[in-house]
């Protein structure tokens, strides 16, 4: 199976092809096809994970093919610019691929609440999955960009067509903000390409690490890094570039938010990690203090605003802003603990937020509202839901034994080593997190039950699968983080080596 990764990458196409020939009225069959369409990439990514050699460093499952080239001989330069098809995975991208595949399946299960046009919904859903898989499997900036943008279009449709009342505005603001991000990203990529002649991650890191070429001087590098920061900062999102994300979290259908919050936000961090730290380690070091400050601002700003929200979706949206602050904090520490914490946070937050948004979808389906005061006392009518919500909340606030704890602990540990004052301020965020999470979760589960709740039924079997799977993964990482860090070890080693050099 030498083409395993490409097959995995394009496997959602099978589902898209099947869906596009199906009649558009048969709701059950379409939903099933959508679900099966996401199961195929999951299966393939598990195979990929099994064949992956955790002890070896470097890119595995690599594939390469000629794609297009520009000849430069008219100017007499004799060189040519080749853009190749290059895919491959390292430990980090493999884990993110798996995360994408898992969350896609569970989000497809969460899509049962979708009310109309199931056919086009699942087609867009699978295109979105294709884009996300591609982002993590690319080893080439051109390819990365194509898949990066490929996630934009289906998201625009998914929000604008299947979202809540104010969906169109949310869709446009998603499109424009992320469009600006990609625009900046494209400038960075093309500038790198024209100066170095390659788009391959590994070669770029080598050339940029070499420091010899005056054309790749300090100003050039630092401006590219800042541009990358803005581009991925929109995606991540970093305050003040976050407003679009709140709209999306509130207006998009919950199953789409599972993906958005679970994976799409992670692309920003993945990009910062792979390109920011990977290509410009010394410049990143020079900016570290500012990144740490930004991280703390994100953490506290998100947490403070989450406290005052009355809408559960908004609480979680601001909580995401806050949690992405921890990613920045971990990166800015630039030591083993910090970077590891940040990467752990990516995966942990992906699982936790997917879980919580799945539960919101469940609650919304029953109550038709996401306002906290409409929920009060749901534990009576829906004990299992309430229990899982509590568990998810505890994971989110970083209770030991759950995945959130490991990441926060490591990120702060890393930062305390290098910038104790900033870290101490940031640590305040942990307290605030506890406040807003407990407030939100408790006001859903406890308090006087509403009369309207009497007819509510608890999680059905279809709903139990995503909830339990996600919770199990959260617990698994929390109890046995070694499993994850083993896969990431070689990646982190490479990055840390670059930072020392």
């Amino acid at each position, binding site marked *: 199976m030498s083409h395993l990764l490409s097959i995995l990458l394009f496997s959602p196409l099978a589902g898209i092809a099947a869906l596009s020939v199906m009649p558009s009225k048969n709701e059950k069959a379409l939903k099933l096809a959508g679900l099966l369409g996401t199961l195929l990439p999951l299966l393939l990514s598990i195979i990929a994970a099994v064949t992956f050699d955790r002890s070896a460093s470097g890119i595995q499952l690599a594939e390469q093919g000629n794609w297009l*080239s520009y000849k430069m001989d008219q100017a007499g330069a004799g060189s040519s610019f080749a853009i190749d098809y290059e895919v491959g995975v390292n430990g980090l991208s493999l884990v993110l691929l798996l995360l994408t595949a898992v969350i896609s399946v569970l989000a497809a299960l969460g899509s049962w609440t979708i009310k109309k046009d199931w056919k086009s919904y699942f087609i867009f859903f699978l295109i979105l999955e294709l884009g996300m898989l591609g982002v993590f499997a690319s080893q080439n900036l051109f390819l990365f960009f194509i898949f990066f943008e490929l996630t*934009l*279009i289906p998201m625009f449709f998914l929000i*604008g067509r299947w979202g809540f009342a104010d969906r169109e505005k949310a869709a446009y603001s998603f499109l*424009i903000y992320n469009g600006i991000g990609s*625009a900046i990203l494209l*400038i960075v990529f*093309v500038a790198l390409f024209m100066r170095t002649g390659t788009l391959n991650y590994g070669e770029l890191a080598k050339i940029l690490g070499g420091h010899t070429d005056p*054309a790749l001087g300090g100003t050039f590098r630092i401006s590219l890094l800042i541009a990358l920061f803005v581009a991925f900062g929109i995606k991540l999102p970093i305050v003040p570039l976050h407003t679009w994300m709140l709209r999306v979290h509130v207006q998009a259908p919950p199953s789409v938010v599972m993906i958005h919050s679970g994976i799409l936000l992670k692309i920003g961090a993945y990009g910062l990690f792979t390109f920011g730290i990977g290509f410009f380690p010394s410049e990143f070091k020079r900016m570290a203090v500012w990144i740490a400050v930004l991280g703390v601002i994100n953490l506290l700003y998100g947490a403070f605003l989450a406290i005052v929200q009355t809408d559960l979706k908004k609480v979680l949206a601001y909580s995401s802003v806050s949690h992405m602050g921890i990613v920045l904090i971990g990166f800015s520490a630039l030591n083993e603990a910090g970077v590891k914490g940040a990467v752990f946070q990516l995966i942990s937050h992906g699982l936790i937020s997917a879980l919580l948004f799945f539960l919101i979808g469940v609650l919304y389906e029953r109550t038709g509202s996401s306002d906290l005061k409409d929920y009060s006392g749901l534990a009576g009518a829906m004990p299992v839901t309430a229990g899982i919500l509590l568990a998810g909340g505890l994971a989110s606030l970083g209770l030991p034994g759950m995945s959130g704890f490991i990441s926060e602990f490591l990120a702060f540990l890393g930062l305390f080593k290098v910038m104790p004052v900033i870290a101490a301020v940031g640590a305040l965020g942990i307290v605030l997190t506890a406040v807003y999470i407990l407030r939100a979760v408790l006001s859903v589960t406890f308090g006087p039950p509403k009369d309207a709740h009497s007819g509510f039924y608890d999680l059905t079997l279809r709903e139990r699968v995503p909830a339990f799977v996600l919770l199990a993964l959260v617990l698994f990482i929390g109890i046995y983080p070694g499993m994850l860090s083993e896969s990431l070890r070689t990646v982190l080693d490479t990055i840390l080596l670059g930072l020392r050099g």
Partner: protein
Amino acid sequence: MDLHTLTSMNWGIMAPEFAILGTAIILSLLDLFMPRTQSRRPLGILAIAGIAAAFIFLYLQFGHEGASLFHDMYRLDSFSKAFKLILLLGTGLILILAYDYRMNEEEEYRGEFYYLLLTALLGAMFMASSGDMITLFIGLELLSLSSYVMAGMRKRKLESNEAAFKYVVTGGISTAITMFGMSYVFGLTGETNLYAVGAALRDTSILQNQFLLVFAFFITFAGLTFKIASAPFHMWAPDVYQGSPLPVTAFLSVVSKTAGFAIILRFFLLCFSSAPGIKGDPLLLQVQPYLAVLAGATMIAGNVIALRQRNIKRLFAYSSVAQAGYILVPFVSVSALLFETTWFYLLAYLFMNIGAFAVIQEVTAASGTNDISGFAGLYKRSPWLAVAMTIFILSLAGIPATAGFAGKFGIFMNALGTNPGHYILAGILMAGTVVSYFYYFNIIGQMFFRSGQEERAIQHKKGLLFVTALCAAATVFFGIFPGTALHFFYNEFHLTDFFQTLGQK
């Protein structure tokens, strides 16, 4: 020149032009002698056949060595072949649009539409092939005059009259300006042949007249950019695009624009590429900042004004202005990738824009309005048409996996590949692209998010459907495999002969 010299010349290299000319003559004669009441639509089929014949002749010329007539007045080099390919392909597709275009009753019998399209094409092909200011000007005028009449084809429509009138007046002025600028070039060098002009301008003694030289450059540039509708000479575009019959609008925005870019590349690179500038740098490098401002202004004007358009044809007029700004970027930066990236973008633009116009023609005919709300609920009425339109719009907006993105990537490489890179220009290009999302995606929003008043399925016309399908397929194909087009370009076309005189006496 006696008869013997005339017959001894290699007229065969003009075979594509002769095919077009012959068809146009036959069509005009048929139109003259056909009974008044008989429909002229069969003439359309004949016109398409003529284009097909010209295409075959062009195809046979691929791989042949360059050749020329009358001391490089008419050139058959790879540059002309590359651009004629786009011109022929574009006009062929537009003729199919025209064939399915319904004017009102009394106007349906107008046959001149078809042969005017062909004479316009002939002018455009001459522009691509000319190596002399005289032939260049003749081609330009043939294209322009035919276009003026076509713009006013719906003579009982007020807006069509307005379009034709504005086009004639502004076009005439631009012709005058072009002529004025060329007269300076001639005055400075005493030559009309572009290669001879280039050689004469290489002489540093020309620096005594450096201001005249710069003046000549800018005046000719101003005149020639009229055809591509770049700022500040873009004002005619919205009114003319709106008033013209739709196939003519498509022709102006694709074929006429391509010819404009061909002439700009040909004229300025041959005449001015080695002309000395004021402080030692070549003139073409020194004027870069000014041209960059023009390109930037074109992108900004096109994109920003498009935001407020409700009329779909006006919207596409401004979109077309913005696109002209994008395509100007490689010309501004004059990097090593200038030819292939400009050519590729024009090829991509051909498919995405003609495709979009095919859908617009279908939708405006079905909804009876040119307002953008005519697209509301298109997804319900005709899902495939909506999907195709989405592909064209994504491509125009430069979203990956479409030809438009591959083209824009090439333009970017031009802007950033020179030293120092044109970062500001690239920034404006990107900002313009993001702004364009607003109006492009607004159409998508109408098609998918809104519901229209009309729910009935659209009755498709076969020709339009064919053009739409072909353009959509090509847009996606060249988006995923842009290498195929580039490979073709590198294999078939050797631009070394662009800068050489071919010198057949």
